[in-house]
């Protein structure tokens, strides 16, 4: 049971001729990902890092049998790119693009659900499974193959924690950055379900943030469905309420969405909750 990506991942990079698409298509290939094609409208026929570029996703899928797409295109073109990928039959779409309008995210996610497609993101660092494949922008160096499944709303904070795990001589089975936007294709719950089934994953780390109620919903799910031991960290414990901290909109309503509410729910569900990111490896070792 793979967690979103594995050796069978055949990847298209949408926006491959852009700076990020170019840079990360190379990085992903070096990680071991089977990057089979790039797509940039109007640039069909070119090559980037020896990867063939197509004008349309459908062409790339037909020519290469790709099953996954990683999207680097700018926000105004992102909805079009994601829907094109879904329409072309891709089964997993990882959207790196940030600042996607929330109504576009809603539309993409709804269509994906209807078509049985997995969307990760938007505004996420992607997914990495050391020794198998990486789809996204997570730094290659911080990973080490192991048994810790990491799921996180955050980008760089995920790197911090993954790095801390690796430095403590543990490793990751798969790390999924689900993104911190208001509407994400995949929530904690879906990833936890995959980790629970994944044989390689023995322990799970959940990295949340203040705002929204996704962590509380995850706690509900953990209580009923997750048997593997868990460590969690919630960023923003000391953030003043009512202030909007970057993408993590701290619109804290009716007592839900606060760090306290999240920590309490996760602890009640049996997870050890770290006060600081640097505590995560220590707690993992204590499990």
């Amino acid at each position, binding site marked *: 049971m793979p967690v979103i990506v594995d050796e069978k991942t055949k990847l298209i990079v949408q926006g491959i001729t852009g*700076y990020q698409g170019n840079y990360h298509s190379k990085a992903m290939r070096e990680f071991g990902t089977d990057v089979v094609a790039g797509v940039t409208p109007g640039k069909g026929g070119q090559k980037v890092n020896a990867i063939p570029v197509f004008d349309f996703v459908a062409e790339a899928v037909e020519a290469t049998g790709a099953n996954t797409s990683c999207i680097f295109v700018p*926000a*105004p073109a992102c909805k079009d790119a994601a829907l094109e990928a879904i329409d072309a039959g891709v089964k997993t779409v990882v959207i790196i693009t*940030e*600042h*996607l*309008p*929330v*109504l*576009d*995210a*809603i539309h993409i*996610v*709804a*269509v994906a659900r209807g078509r049985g497609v997995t969307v990760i993101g938007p505004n996420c*660092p992607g997914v990495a499974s050391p020794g198998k494949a990486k789809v996204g*922008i*997570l*730094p290659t160096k*911080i990973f080490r193959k192991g048994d810790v499944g990491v799921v*996180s709303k*955050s*980008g*760089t*904070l*995920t*790197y*911090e924690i993954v*790095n801390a795990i690796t430095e403590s001589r543990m490793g990751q089975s798969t790390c999924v950055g689900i993104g*911190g936007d*208001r*509407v*994400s294709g995949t*929530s904690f719950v879906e990833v936890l379900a995959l980790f629970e089934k994944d044989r390689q994953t023995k322990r799970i780390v959940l*990295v949340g*943030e*203040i705002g*929204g*109620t*996704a962590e509380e*919903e995850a706690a509900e799910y953990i209580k009923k469905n997750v048997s593997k031991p868990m460590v969690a*960290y919630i*960023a*923003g*414990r*000391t*953030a*003043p309420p009512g*202030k*909007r*901290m*970057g*993408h*993590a909109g701290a619109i804290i*309503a*009716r007592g839900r969405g606060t760090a306290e509410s999240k920590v309490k729910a996760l602890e009640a569900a049996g997870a050890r909750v770290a*006060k*600081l*990111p*640097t505590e995560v490896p220590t707690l993992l070792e204590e499990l």
Partner: protein
Amino acid sequence: MKLFEYYAKGILARHGIPVPEGFVVSSPDQIRSVRGPVMVKAQVLMGGRGKAGGIRPADSVEDARKAASAILDLNISGYIAKEVLVERRLDVAKELYLGMTIDRSRKCLLMMASASGGMDIESVPEGEILMLPIDPLIGYQDYIGRKVVGFLGVAKERAAHVEDICRRLCELVLREDAELAEINPLVITKDGRVVAGDAKITIDSDALFRHREYDSLKEDLTPLEEKAKRLDIAFVQLDGNIGVIANGAGLTMATLDSLNTYGGKAGVFLDLGGTDDPEKVKNAMLLMHEANPKVILLNIFGGITKCDTVAKGVLEAIEGQRAKIPIVARIKGVNEEIARTMLKDAGLIPASGLSEAAELASKESARVV
């Protein structure tokens, strides 16, 4: 992007939702004539303007000018209205609440309605609010409006009108990329009309690229917030004296949490986001200097944002500064070695991990004070 009441009402009107007749002025003498009883309303984005005296009735031009003059002098939770809306006073029979927002869990739009209109929806008991998720594939359909009307107990003769407003509000949200649209109160007047008494609309700032009409609007921002916005930097002023710069909201918050452990208090939250432009880093540093913290804590985990890019920007920024603020720098990730070499002689206080950086910055801030 939050819109002022008068602007939000203009959008409602454009989408066929009735609003009271009215006009906006920025000084009392711009009020030339007033037909019948009116309300004079402070145009500020903060709630609670009514209690603060920001909404006053008037029955003549003189009255209205006096009210406007008083309102334009008011300090409403730190904000001073630059404009007032003068609009026909409604003969209220009933006040309802109708709103739309994003349902993060269900990943869709949510229509909300309550018979307890006129007060902050947050303070209405949950049982008195109808929440209807709108399936994005289904879209708004008549049964949604019928459910709202049924829940609110709207009289039969006005049901079609309220249903129509529900449909139009949903269209408005989709067409205008509103992430919040509230009509509170939705007034039923004594003569049986249904009119938006107040309106709050927040446009999704990520969608402004397809709504150029909002470019000319100004938000109620402090000068530093204004600058941060132009730089596309998340910037929040807080109570402490340590300026925190990190990349990514989660990492920046985690840095705040770490500071807290060591007794340090953040005075600025500055999330660089993902950037590979030294110019942006430089401008962020200059902005931070303007906010005048005692210590700067720079915490970078390089990915999209490469460490050497940050180093370049930081060097350029501190070069021209007269008053040298101590900078604790923790730089990790892509190209960290290059960055370390670049910053070696710049007088920064290096830290190898997040905890160490937080500890150093906290100590430094205590020392400087």
